[in-house]
């Protein structure tokens, strides 16, 4: 997936030089193109780094950076064939260790992913974590994500993708109704604690996004899938705006704005009442909105339209009725 990478600063450029040098020492006559592909950077960045490495070195016994104290490359191969061959090496032999914070970021990332079937082999993951610990230059920083048990639905989705079969499941749609779905799994995505399946929905004849915690009774279908990840262009955002979307104006406590980030793609708010922020969210129907607003009591209030406001009030009133009818 294409991602925006910020313009590298000096620190990032140094990190690249320290990673690239041992790679070049291990790969005699590697092309600029292959190196750029491997590191996931533009070819121009590789060429710039190679030119710098090729004239760098140590002060040496004379303190004047004599020729033998410098890296050198096969300049003809580089200039004429875009190939890199280091012909003289100094000081650096091996890849650098991870910093304590870098190791911690990877370890916490692995912990976050622990419900994936790929991470189900706990012994293998344990040995990987131990290697990260041994491979860092300082104790990994104390950042941790609670580990999850392997998820049965995720395991099933992976098997379906491997065998080229559809999955079938019960799904509670946004309006709250239970439906049966038959889907070709394309990609699994997550946003914090919530996991989603994006797949080709055979009843809708379109790509749809499903929350994993709304999926029940999932099983492998006998039918072959007709859509594969490589052939379907998935939109970058989980939820796509449609012309049928409803616009609802709400007042939100500033502390709750992050909870609404998914509904405020532009993130623009204006001054509301009582120190609150006023925002316009787009939703596909009021049924989804009433759940969202009701889960933020005291933090968000629908201002307009009246229909949306009433839907929220009615939802909560029906909730209260449950306690009255029970006679408590």
């Amino acid at each position: 997936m294409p991602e925006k990478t910020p313009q590298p600063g000096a620190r990032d450029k140094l990190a690249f030089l320290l990673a690239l040098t041992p790679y070049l020492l291990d790969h005699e006559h590697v092309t600029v193109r292959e190196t750029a592909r491997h590191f996931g950077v533009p070819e121009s960045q590789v060429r710039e780094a190679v030119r710098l490495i090729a004239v760098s070195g140590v002060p040496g016994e004379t303190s004047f950076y004599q020729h033998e104290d410098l890296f050198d490359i096969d300049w003809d191969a580089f200039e004429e064939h875009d190939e890199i061959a280091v012909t003289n090496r100094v000081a650096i032999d091996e890849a650098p260790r991870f910093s304590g914070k870098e190791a911690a970021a990877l370890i916490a990332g692995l912990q976050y992913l622990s419900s994936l079937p790929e991470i189900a082999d706990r012994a293998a993951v344990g040995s990987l974590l131990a290697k990260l610990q041994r491979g860092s230059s300082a104790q990994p920083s104390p950042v941790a994500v609670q580990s999850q048990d392997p998820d049965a639905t995720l395991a099933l989705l992976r098997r379906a993708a491997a065998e080229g079969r559809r999955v079938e499941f019960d799904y509670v749609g946004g309006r709250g109704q239970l439906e049966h779905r038959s889907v070709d799994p394309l990609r699994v995505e997550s946003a914090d604690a919530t996991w989603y399946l994006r797949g080709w929905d055979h009843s809708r004849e379109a790509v749809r996004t499903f929350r994993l915690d709304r999926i029940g009774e999932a099983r492998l279908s006998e039918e072959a899938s007709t859509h594969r990840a490589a052939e379907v262009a998935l939109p970058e955002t989980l939820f796509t705006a449609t012309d049928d979307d409803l616009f609802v104006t709400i007042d939100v406590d500033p502390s709750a704005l992050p909870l609404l980030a998914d509904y405020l793609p532009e993130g623009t708010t204006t001054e509301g009442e009582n120190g609150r922020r006023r925002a316009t969210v787009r939703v596909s129907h009021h049924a989804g909105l009433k759940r969202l607003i009701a889960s933020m009591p005291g933090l968000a209030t629908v201002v307009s339209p009246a229909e949306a406001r009433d839907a929220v009030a009615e939802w909560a009133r029906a909730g209260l009725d449950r306690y009255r009818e029970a006679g408590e």
Partner: protein
Amino acid sequence: MAVAQQRVPVEERLFSLVLALLATEIGLTKSEILSTVQGYRQRYVAEGDNANLERQFERDKDDLRELGVPIETLDSPGQAGNNQQLRYRIPRGSYELPLDVRFTPEETTLLNLAGRVWREGSLSTESRRALLKLRSLGVDPDEPLLGYAPRVRVRDAAFEPAATAIERRQIISFPYLKPGERQAQLRLVKPLALIAHEGRWHLFAEQVEGGETRTFLLRRIVGPIKATGKTFVPPPGDQSQRGLDELEEIWRSRVAVVDADPGTDAAMRLANRRGTVRDDGRLTVHYADLAILADELTGYGPEVRVVSPPELVSAVQQRLERIVADHGGADA
């Protein structure tokens, strides 16, 4: 090779510093570094004032440490305690990835995925650099069968200042708003670890007064985290694991019973929650924080009815009443 007199780029100076410090066994003194290493030597004034250059060297050392490059200082022989004669070096064994730390294509795939989890903030910078070092080893990851796009957004404003305070071992204070209270209370703590539990970030810390440990939900830190100027020595052991264990114990011990109508969003999602036990429409769920569970259950409206504990029943009822009142509905 001719010495270029024009300005040396920052990354060239830093790279040259690493090479020089790696190549030396006995270490280099500061004046040796400033007078001979590429990027410094061009600006070095023999027998003159090099105060600016010395400050530059201090900042450069911080940059290297930030990237995990270990810098060792040694006393010069017979000059113990003489700061001007301290010798600097990068011990090769602490700099290089040990030879037994190599990763298979499967492991490389997992680490690539783990590094892509973080999409913003310091964790994303750190993981991007970690993946760069991983690529240095030349192993290409396997293409996964099913594409994954994991994404964690650290949206709590308190995360970065808390992480910095933990790293610097600073005693900190911050205003903390407990649910149900109108006024935030100022807390004074020794920060030990940052922990994500059930999708929310917590600070695990030791209270200065009393000395017991507590977990603070980051989103309830409602004002700036301030360093007090005092530092502390963290207790030995894995503090993040300790914090996780404490939270997990709280989560295990708290149990709510709710009735959820079969086939509804509430029934499906509560049943899919970790640790839930289902007995027809009656669900037993675990929770770490009553206020957060009450918010979630309120969102389900008429699809659920809380059975126990009584304080959860009243918390949900109060929230539903609040929603009705806020939305202009008279509760008849």
